[in-house]
């Protein structure tokens, strides 16, 4: 099979370095602005890029609309997780959380509003923060990551209120169960733990790898992604992607996906998942694969659904992972185009 050879552009040192950086870029996290028109993406070099979804989706979109409106260096280390409140963007990197004002970020040279570090036990290595979760009723933020603990931070005062201990290895992901306000956390130790926010205690533990039908020892036991729908929970990672009934702690559906999944979310009556492999997978709740839509990156790490009511024209699914590109799906059936750093 012949490959089309691109024209060799005379590349000096700077261009080669830039090209190499883009080749080895990984986008870990995404977050949609409160107005729904912008998308923030954080990469492994600690940069955050803001893309204008409304410009890229409009009918006069040109190539420049698929480039970021602004890119800035947010953290020293990779930006593993980002979440948006109604006015701020919160980004987490190497052991610290920074807040940015959405209204200010579009201007060049913006500075973070504040920067907080939860109290860590060890000082040898700064643990990363892998997951951020907003609890709107309490106006607080939950962080979890490399130090195997969940920290709660009050957004108004900036103080760290609770520490939830229980995991034996670092935490990958968090999910919020609204009905009885509980937080679910999944970690490297292979367990999904449920915590009651009011009592700050662990109420339930599900060790996924111990269940034979879903465990896959050659991948490991780590839980990479969690999503919950109050009664139901879907989790994936080393073990197979499984749908659990929370009250009885039993796996009800096992999705036949070989590659470990890194992100999963409920959407309408479907479950969307992505992980190793190019495709965004769409599952029926019964366990059938409805569709597999290929993206442009060899592996995906995050999915984001723009469901902001203020911008219905920007209702898209965006997927990002092991490349410098964010794929935009306007309709779940195919990839429309890609934004790129």
């Amino acid at each position: 099979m012949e490959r089309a050879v691109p024209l060799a552009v005379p590349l000096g040192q700077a261009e080669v370095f830039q090209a190499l950086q883009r080749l080895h870029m990984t986008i870990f996290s995404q977050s949609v602005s409160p107005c729904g028109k912008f998308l923030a993406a954080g990469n492994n070099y600690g940069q955050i890029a803001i893309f204008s979804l409304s410009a890229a989706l409009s009918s006069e979109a040109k190539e420049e609309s698929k480039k970021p409106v602004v890119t800035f260096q947010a953290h020293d280390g990779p930006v593993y997780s980002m979440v948006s409140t109604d006015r701020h963007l919160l980004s987490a990197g190497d052991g610290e959380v920074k807040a940015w004002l959405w209204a200010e970020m579009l201007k060049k040279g913006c500075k973070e509003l504040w920067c907080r570090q939860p109290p860590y036990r060890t000082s040898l290595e700064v643990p990363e923060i892998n997951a951020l979760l907003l609890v709107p009723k309490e106006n607080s933020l939950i962080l979890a990551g490399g130090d195997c603990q969940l920290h709660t931070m009050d957004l108004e005062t900036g103080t760290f209120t609770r520490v939830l201990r229980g995991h034996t290895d670092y935490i990958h992901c968090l999910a919020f169960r609204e009905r009885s306000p509980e937080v679910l956390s999944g970690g490297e130790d292979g367990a999904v733990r449920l915590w009651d926010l009011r009592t700050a205690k662990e109420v339930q533990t599900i060790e996924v790898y111990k269940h034979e039908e879903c465990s896959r020892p050659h991948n490991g036991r780590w839980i990479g992604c969690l999503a919950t729908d109050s009664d139901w929970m879907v989790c994936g990672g080393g073990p197979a992607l499984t749908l659990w009934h929370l009250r009885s702690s039993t796996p009800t559906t096992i999705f036949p996906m070989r590659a470990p999944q890194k992100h999963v979310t409920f959407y309408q009556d479907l479950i969307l998942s992505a992980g190793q492999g190019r495709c965004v997978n769409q599952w029926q709740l019964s366990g059938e694969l409805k569709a597999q839509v290929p993206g442009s990156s060899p592996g995906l790490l995050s999915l984001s659904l723009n469901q902001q009511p203020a911008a219905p024209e920007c209702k898209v699914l965006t997927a990002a992972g092991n490349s410098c590109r964010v794929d935009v799906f306007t309709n779940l059936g195919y990839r429309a185009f890609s934004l790129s750093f």
Partner: protein
Amino acid sequence: MSSESSKKRKPKVIRSDGAPAEGKRNRSDTEQEGKYYSEEAEVDLRDPGRDYELYKYTCQELQRLMAEIQDLKSRGGKDVAIEIEERRIQSCVHFMTLKKLNRLAHIRLKKGRDQTHEAKQKVDAYHLQLQNLLYEVMHLQKEITKCLEFKSKHEEIDLVSLEEFYKEAPPDISKAEVTMGDPHQQTLARLDWELEQRKRLAEKYCESLSNKEKILKEIEVKKEYLSSLQPRLNSIMQASLPVQEYLFMPFDQAHKQYETARHLPPPLYVLFVQATAYGQACDKTLSVAIEGSVDEAKALFKPPEDSQDDESDSDAEEEQTTKRRRPTLGVQLDDKRKEMLKRHPLSVMLDLKCKDDSVLHLTFFYLMNLNIMTVKAKVTTATELITPISAGDLLSPDSVLSCLYPGDHGKKTPNPANQYQFDKVGILTLSDYVLELGHPYLWVQKLGGLHFPKEQPQQTVIADHSLSASHMETTMKLLKTRVQSRLALHKQFASLEHGIVPVTSDCQYLFPAKVVSRLVKWVTVAHEDYMELHFTKDIVDAGLAGDTNFYYMALVERGTAKLQAAVVLNPGYSSIPPIFQLCLNWKGEKTNSNDDNIRAMESEVNVCYKELCGPWPSHQLLTNQLQRLCVLLDVYLETESHDDSVEGPKEFPQEKMCLRLFRGPSRMKPFKYNHPQGFFSHR
């Protein structure tokens, strides 16, 4: 007589008789006044009204008489005849009256006409006079205006102002008393003064001219004197030669070179001058020489008449031979090509000496018909080099100077006008001929002061000294760095082919003391083969794998794990880093598309290369990258989590000190080595 003549003529002039049949009047001039009867005079006396009445009465009488005659005639009788006769006589008398009246009327009419005529004549005469006078008046007015407008020439002369005049002019000219009052005299005086001044100035002018002539003659004399000096100086120079040699100041040699340099074509001349200047000023290791035959160069510019005379005989001979055997079309085309690609007989040689006594020999040629310069390069080392197999291309004359500046591959002619010339003789591209002609790199053109702008094609490109001077220093430095880095690579390759990664002592701190993975193979790979590899697609798609790069394959092994690394070496090494793409064969095939950690390993070597540069001029980059690759493989294999379902111990026990094995959503391994603590952590 006069009555006849007056009948014939119709005079307009006043006095004429007009009325015919008046024999009684004016027959002779001698008749006295009392005798002659002037009816004209009578006209004036009689009253026209009464004449009119008389005429009416006469007519009535005639009518009455005619009626009576009629009656009498109709009655008839004897005495009628007498009465008729009476009446007839009366009628005659009336007829006579009528005739007279008629005459009078005619005379009156004529008189009236004559009077009118006369008056009209007078009026006409006055009118004419008036016109004449008006005409004269106009003429006189015109003359007056002309006189008033007359500008005398003296007004065009700029006279000196009045004050100056009175100040400067000698009193006999200015005559103040007279001139003050009378402007006419004043002007005259001023004109006099002007004339006086001009005469004086004319004299001065003549004087100056004669001076000038004298001085010119003096200059001529001095010039001759100087020119007679030249041969004397030459003889002194000759005499001083032995002294020069004794004192090691080879002015003569330099002088000779400059003599030869005069025959160089302009771009080579610019290069020669600039390179010599740079060598003397900044860089003692640069030496410049001119090679080639000066006579041939002179022959190029021989005037055509001489050659025609010489060759007329040979021409005749040649014609005979050519008639018998015409060369074939192919040969003709070949000759044309050779003619087009002809080089100037002189060439400039630059020798750059590097610190380790290796020398880069550059020979610059000028292609006359194409107006471009080319260069041939050769590297010689102090000691003879044994070339390892993989290093074949590094120092080859064809590729040692490739891409000295990014994109300058030297395979295409930089002069856009050449394409048309090539089309005429069927040359497709210059790259077929670079081996014998040398490479037409862009920096070579710049050193020769030739600039070929892409946007506006110029008619003739002239060699420009300032262009050459501005590029000289950078290019020389780049050339030296290039030679040294290639030589360093040369040495390193020799070691790599033997499976040893040569890490210098000042770079040892980058790596842990114990590295178990070993480099097993290091070979060159062809460009097409590199493009066909399945794990190099990203580099090819990003446009980083052009045909001017060098491609190699390295194989690192440990136990059952084999790591293939495809290396792209840019000719601009070491400022442009080598790029690695990995493929690990251990428990399946892992590349950057299916294993995030392989991607991280590539990133450690490709993106974080600046840490591995080592001391300037960073010749150690490639070897450090390879060593790091071995360390990364060690970490990868030792930190692989143990699969509980498989029996048996881990193939690679963990020996490296790591704080954490996995981190982040991608579960990265700890690839970063920390010195001097010696543990591995994450970036």
